[in-house]
């Protein structure tokens, strides 16, 4: 069974992420673990040392636990498998990275509200947690229906890492999978979007080759994509199209910078986004 860690805070983004995770768990048979990290020193506040600090931290842990339990209990009726959360004190990213490694999780999930300004999204992608996490990450931006998954494919180098991750997570689910080969428009103008005929013979355009490779990898494992698309447009227009999917998955090499147009595209996708970096 897939083992997922959901990061929780007492905020709207976490509430949405928890509800989305519960829906996903029901569909793909996933065990959810929740975790909250209380960052006591984030503003340089030193609460003393020794016994004073230890007593103070115990109090904080208890308060945090009560708050997060309140959040979990709200969802418990629709997601009975939720256990008590893991509560830690410390630096958030460090603690989450330790837990992901120690617990050998298959998936990390957190909520990030969809924003018109992409700066926060870029910061997330560049963060230590996202660069070093040993498993794929789902960023939940909105509570959407998990009707289908879109796999975003670019130049072809992303096919293997993305498909491998997807097969590991979704192999036992009956979610509809679509393949989408994207290219960005260099100049303003009307883009195009075309559904590819899967019955076509090989020896086609680059986009079709990439899609063919992905189709082959998926079908070898008994997973057959429903539709394949070739899209050329601006990041915003492609993101609008992807809004109809319950999950959009992409491979982002760990060296990719924030000026990457794929980042621009992903920052504008309103659905949940699955990122594979390894």
């Amino acid at each position, binding site marked *: 069974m897939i083992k997922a860690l959901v990061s929780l805070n007492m*905020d*709207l983004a976490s*509430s*949405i992420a928890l509800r989305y995770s519960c829906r996903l768990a029901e569909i793909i048979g996933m065990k959810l673990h929740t975790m909250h990290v209380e960052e006591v020193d984030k503003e340089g506040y030193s609460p003393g040392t020794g016994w004073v600090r230890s007593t103070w931290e115990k109090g904080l842990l208890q308060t945090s636990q009560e708050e997060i339990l309140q959040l979990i209990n709200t969802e418990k009726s629709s997601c009975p498998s939720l256990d008590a959360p893991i509560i830690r004190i410390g630096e958030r990213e460090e603690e989450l990275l330790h837990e992901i490694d120690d617990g050998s999780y298959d998936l990390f999930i957190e909520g990030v*509200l*969809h*924003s*018109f*300004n992409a700066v926060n999204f870029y910061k997330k992608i560049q963060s230590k947690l996202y660069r070093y996490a040993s498993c794929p990450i789902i960023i939940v*931006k*909105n*509570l*959407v*229906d998990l009707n289908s998954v879109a796999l975003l494919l670019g130049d072809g180098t992303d096919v293997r890492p993305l498909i491998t991750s997807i097969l590991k997570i979704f192999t036992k689910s009956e979610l509809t999978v679509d393949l989408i080969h994207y290219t960005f428009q260099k100049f303003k103008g009307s883009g195009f979007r075309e559904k590819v005929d899967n019955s076509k013979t090989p020896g086609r355009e680059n986009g079709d080759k990439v899609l063919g490779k992905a189709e082959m990898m998926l079908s070898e494992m008994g997973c057959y994509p429903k539709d394949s698309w070739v899209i050329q447009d601006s990041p*915003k227009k492609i993101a609008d199209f992807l*809004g109809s999917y319950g999950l959009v998955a992409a491979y982002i090499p760990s060296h990719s910078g924030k000026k990457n147009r794929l980042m621009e595209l992903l920052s504008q996708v*309103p659905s949940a986004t699955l990122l594979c970096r390894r």
Partner: protein
Amino acid sequence: MRILVAVDQNPYSAHTVGEVAKLAANTWANVSLLGVQSKRLPKNEGSDAKTRAWKIDGPLPNVLSAYRDNFLSYFKEEDCPYTEREFGYKMIELRKGLWEELYVCKSAKKNFRALIRIGNPVKEILAEAKEEETDLIVLGCDTSQGCSWENNMAVPQKVANDAACSVLVAKKEKKVERIVCCLDHDRVSQQSLEMINQLVTLHSAKLTIVGFAESEGIKTRVEKKLDNVLRYYHERNIEPWIELAELSSLDAFIAQEAKWGLMALWMGKMSILEKALPKSKVKKLIKGSESSVLILR
């Protein structure tokens, strides 16, 4: 709910009447159709000329009559809440222990009125809305002329800015695929949420709820309100998207998101949008946007 539909004799008004009929079928609102005829200035001082200034003439009375028929055609006769009179016998208690079968007429469950006022369109629409304590004014416009009425009058823009109630400027050309609803703080009224709910159902549209964040990030109370709003819509089987936008990028945001078909802006008293969007910008939005615009108050 009381809806005032401001109309003239142009095709965009016919479209607006149809839209309101669909809304009224869901809400059973009291509806008034209002046409405004310009006052004719008397050419001389004779009493006859002065009297003529207050007479109704021209195409408006017939147009209103056609709009009324069109409006009522959206309802099945037996379900129509606006059926004027219903006659029949009914046992009525005259006093304790004494009943009599009387021939009675029941009035309609809801009011539907067709009115003509004479004067300046903007002033008369606002006056009628105020007198009747209207909740929503709906009006269409000619989008080829920058959302104007006859003689290039910016009636929708002026009404949207000066009305005390909510105003919907319905544009004919654009299909409503998504309703982008800009809420800025925790005082948004329940009535406004229900209005959005109705429009989402009516158009089978998707919904995006936008929370405006100041530069220091979204405030906790706004976030709590957004969470409540989200749950309110989930209970009604509507799954809205949440999007955050900073006030500093308000113009760019509106320009980009107004493409979806309907943009709703919560501009109640003390709201951030009321301060951030001066009248000139609201005018510009209504004039330039392809989408319908709903100002919620």
